[in-house]
């Protein structure tokens, strides 16, 4: 195999220096000439008709330039169901829904005027859990649902407020129950949590009064999709929209789709060409951007005495919030692999995405996998306990290996799962029991396995430019959201052109000049954009070689590249720096461009009746995480002692970055396991929209982390790479849950494992035992 010079090396991030000096400019930092300041008026009711809006006082406030309501912005958008208005259209569906907006000369005036907008409501019945919202007789949250434009794959109903029903049908579970020696049914739940990226949401927009062209500056993780969604909503051609992507201070799924963008665009139509900035503060970000789906999971399994899984049935109720957003695809992609990475002959899964009157749920790192895993992986431990089997042995008996036909009809390859299971459990000395520090402090160990698909099929395109100085620009629509794509893609370009990393620059992301990319989501970038950049770099390298032939009096096959030069393989002293090749052919200001594109096109969409596909995903990510905990029975506090996370990343392009992704995922997983819960009360109000009351994992909550990279090459991936961004948090709560159950000898079925919950569960168990 070809010797790699920079791919596979733990090089430091190409964007690190601008970030440690404060020079990096994020969306939230951006100031534009003659900019106006926007402020949003949010709904105060969870489900209500708007009977009257009075904007008179707000309009008269000094410094106010525009006050708009739904009547001024009669547009609706949505990724797979067009159900979400730019500003409320006659009714509201959650507390936090944008109802009106103000643009003013300064922030204070905008805020003061927004407070003067009067809205009167007539309340409607509201639902705050997916189970309530889909009960027979529930009032439709979207009374016009039937009339909405929808993607072809949407299957709604049969219950009220169900915007997507995903079905997986394999074998015959009824037969499975008969063949099984043990049948176990359980119910688990996962609450609403939030992305809580450190940079709150913002967007700037400007409408050119002459051409009507709309320019939007926003740190959106899918600029081309956002552009298309805005154009479609406005009823204009895509060319009428330009999106410029400043740096993003974290997203985790919350900064895709449209959040602040519609408000900024709607205001910009009323500011006579002046740009307007709409910033959400932290509280607004909590209530009005996006949350992760709460989920109720019913799981039932049939298993043989020797641990062989025979049948599994699951029903997952995904709380979608007030608008569909990405609920349909989270429901599909989260429900499909929810029965776990195991061989199971009889499987039946029903996933229901349900509208509720709560903040909108959507993409969140892991895209539905953590919710299914919380149920499935604890359920596996309960099965092991009942069979008197070691939990690792039960997994080994059933776990996916190369060549297995997965229950959704796809033959699997490059499955590194078993190695992750062995390495993660070894790292916490699985099987070795230790007593707690005191009699009331119990120790336990647990682990959990997952597989995760990626969004398929999708396309990435890239360009690579080489100038006369031998400097290289990479044109890629992948958004640097902190995951390190700029470093990975730079490494890929440097590798193919055999130049030092310092020669590579990532071009700024502007949809007017950057080639198309589907999205920076779904752990797809290293694989898809990595392949596209690699192809573009090879393309430009071939052009350089062609140009160099007459200069070196050689034929193309006789040429090679190294150290920024092209040379004769037999006579390495016959060499030319690549910049010189460009200059000699095209002059000092010449530029050579290569292009590359990658689409995973094999396979077909999921069958709507069975959920089957022979290629549901371009690749799969596999992981096992293992935890050791101490639980204080007197306080209910769970203390993590150590956590190991073994991830099959394909081949690591940058081990330092891989470890960073795994550790970051773990901390987020730990937060969701032990603390995080965005509480919505019985009036639909978010009760803890601040970092004081919504507890992210701090440096004191995160224990010693042991990231383990397992390399199981993916033949189609660039240099064998798969993706890694999302799985880091997916098995974490289940691993911790299993460790807590091991420590206490009892199972807790609902997240988070906060001291209060653990304490009361222990008390209840004591009461039951006493009775």
């Amino acid at each position: 195999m070809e010797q790699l010079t920079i791919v596979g090396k733990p090089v430091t991030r190409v964007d690190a220096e601008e970030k440690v000096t404060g020079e990096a400019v994020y969306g939230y930092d951006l100031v534009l000439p003659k900019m106006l300041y926007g402020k949003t008026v949010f709904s105060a009711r969870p489900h209500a008709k708007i009977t009257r809006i009075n904007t008179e006082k707000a309009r008269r406030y000094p410094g106010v330039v525009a006050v708009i309501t739904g009547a001024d912005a009669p547009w609706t958008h949505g990724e797979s169901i067009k159900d979400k208005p730019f500003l409320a259209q006659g009714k509201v569906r959650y507390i936090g829904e944008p109802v009106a907006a103000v643009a003013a000369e300064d922030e204070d005036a905008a805020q003061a005027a927004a407070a003067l907008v009067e809205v009167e409501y007539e309340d409607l019945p509201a639902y705050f859990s997916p189970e309530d919202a889909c009960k027979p007789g529930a009032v439709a949250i979207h009374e016009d649902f039937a009339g909405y434009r929808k993607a072809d794959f949407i299957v709604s109903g049969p219950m009220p407020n169900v915007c997507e029903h995903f079905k997986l049908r394999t074998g015959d579970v009824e037969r499975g129950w008969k063949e099984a020696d043990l049948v176990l049914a359980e119910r688990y739940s996962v609450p609403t949590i939030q992305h809580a990226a450190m940079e709150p949401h913002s967007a700037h927009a400007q409408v050119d009064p002459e051409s009507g062209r709309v320019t939007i500056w926003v740190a959106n993780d899918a600029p081309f999709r956002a552009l298309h969604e805005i154009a479609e909503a406005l009823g204009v051609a895509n060319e009428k929209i330009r999106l410029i992507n400043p740096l993003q201070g974290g997203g985790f799924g919350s900064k895709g789709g449209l959040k602040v963008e519609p408000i900024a665009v709607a205001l910009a139509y009323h500011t006579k060409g002046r740009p307007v900035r709409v910033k959400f503060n932290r509280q607004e970000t909590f209530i009005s951007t996006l949350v992760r789906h709460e989920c109720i999971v019913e799981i039932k399994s049939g298993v043989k005495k020797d641990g062989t899984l025979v049948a599994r049935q699951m029903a997952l109720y995904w709380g979608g919030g007030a608008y569909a957003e990405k609920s349909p695809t989270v429901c599909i992609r989260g429900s499909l692999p929810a029965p776990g990475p195991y061989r199971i002959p009889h499987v039946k899964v029903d996933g229901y995405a349900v509208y509720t009157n709560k903040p909108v749920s959507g993409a969140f790192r892991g895209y539905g996998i953590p919710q299914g895993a919380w149920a499935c992986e604890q359920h596996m431990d309960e099965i092991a306990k009942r069979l008197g089997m070691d939990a690792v042995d039960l997994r080994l008996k059933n776990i996916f290996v190369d060549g297995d036909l997965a229950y959704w009809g796809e033959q699997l390859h490059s499955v590194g799962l078993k190695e992750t299971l062995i390495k993660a459990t070894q790292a916490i000395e699985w099987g070795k029991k230790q007593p707690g520090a005191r009699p009331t402090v119990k120790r336990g160990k647990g682990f959990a396995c997952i597989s995760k698909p990626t969004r398929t099929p999708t396309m990435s395109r890239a360009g690579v430019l080489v100038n006369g100085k031998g400097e290289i620009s990479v044109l890629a629509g992948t958004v640097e959201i902190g995951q390190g794509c700029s470093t990975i893609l730079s490494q890929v370009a440097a590798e193919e052109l055999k130049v030092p990393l310092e020669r590579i620059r990532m071009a700024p992301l502007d949809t007017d000049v950057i080639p198309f990319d589907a999205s920076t989501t779904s752990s797809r970038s290293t694989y898809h954009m990595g392949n596209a950049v690699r192809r573009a770099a090879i393309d430009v390298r071939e052009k350089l070689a062609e140009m160099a032939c007459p200069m070196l009096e050689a034929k193309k096959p006789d040429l090679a590249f190294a150290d920024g030069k092209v040379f004769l393989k037999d006579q390495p002293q016959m060499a030319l720096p690549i910049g010189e090749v460009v200059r000699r052919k095209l002059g000092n200001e010449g530029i050579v461009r290569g292009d590359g594109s990658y689409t995973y096109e094999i396979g077909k969409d999921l069958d709507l009746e069975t959920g089957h596909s022979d290629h549901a995903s371009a690749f799969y990510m596999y992981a096992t995480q293992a935890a050791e905990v101490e639980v204080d029975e007197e306080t209910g506090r769970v203390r993590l002692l150590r956590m190991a996370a073994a991830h099959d990343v394909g081949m690591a392009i940058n081990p330092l970055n891989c470890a960073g992704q795994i550790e970051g995922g773990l901390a987020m997983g730990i937060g969701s396991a032990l603390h995080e819960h965005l509480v919505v009360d019985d009036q639909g109000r978010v009760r803890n929209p601040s970092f004081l009351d919504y507890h992210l994992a701090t440096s004191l909550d995160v224990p010693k982390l042991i990231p383990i990279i397992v390399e199981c090459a993916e033949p189609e991936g660039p240099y064998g790479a798969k993706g890694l961004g999302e799985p880091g948090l997916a098995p974490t709560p289940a691993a911790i849950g299993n460790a807590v159950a091991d420590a206490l000898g009892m199972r807790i079925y609902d997240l988070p494992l906060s001291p209060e919950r653990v304490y009361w569960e222990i008390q209840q168990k004591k009461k039951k035992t006493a009775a």
Partner: protein
Amino acid sequence: MTKKIQITLNGKKTSVEVQAHRLLLDLLRDEIGLTGTKEGCGTGDCGACTVLLNGKPVNSCLILSGELDGAEIVTIEGLKIGPELHPVQKAFIQDGGAQCGYCTPGMLMMSKALLEENPNPTEEDIRFALSGNLCRCTGYAKIVQAVQDAAVELRRMKTEG
């Protein structure tokens, strides 16, 4: 109400006209244009806006501009030592302590403050010192490592004068 105040900002004496009710964070970002100091919550809960005020780390979103006459303020833009990156900045680069980078300026200012007060911190000391600075990307592992490495380097620099 506007007020004229004298401050020393990143080593440079300046006189600025401030609206007394505006926050130090807004003064830095909106009035002076130093956007390296980040706004994460505006309520003192996340630490992203940490700067040094008279040598002590503070959340600049909790300080009123009107109180600042005569104050000495150091922001992320003033962390370099001459043209050189501060050892803690170098260590964050080397160890992978920054991902999205939004919490990084606050983390660095808090780390600098810690290392000035305690040149030889334990891992526990570092975790405690940074516990008011939230990071959603890194899991803190590489940040803690970077502060440990910076401590070693700062001690070496001190010994070698």
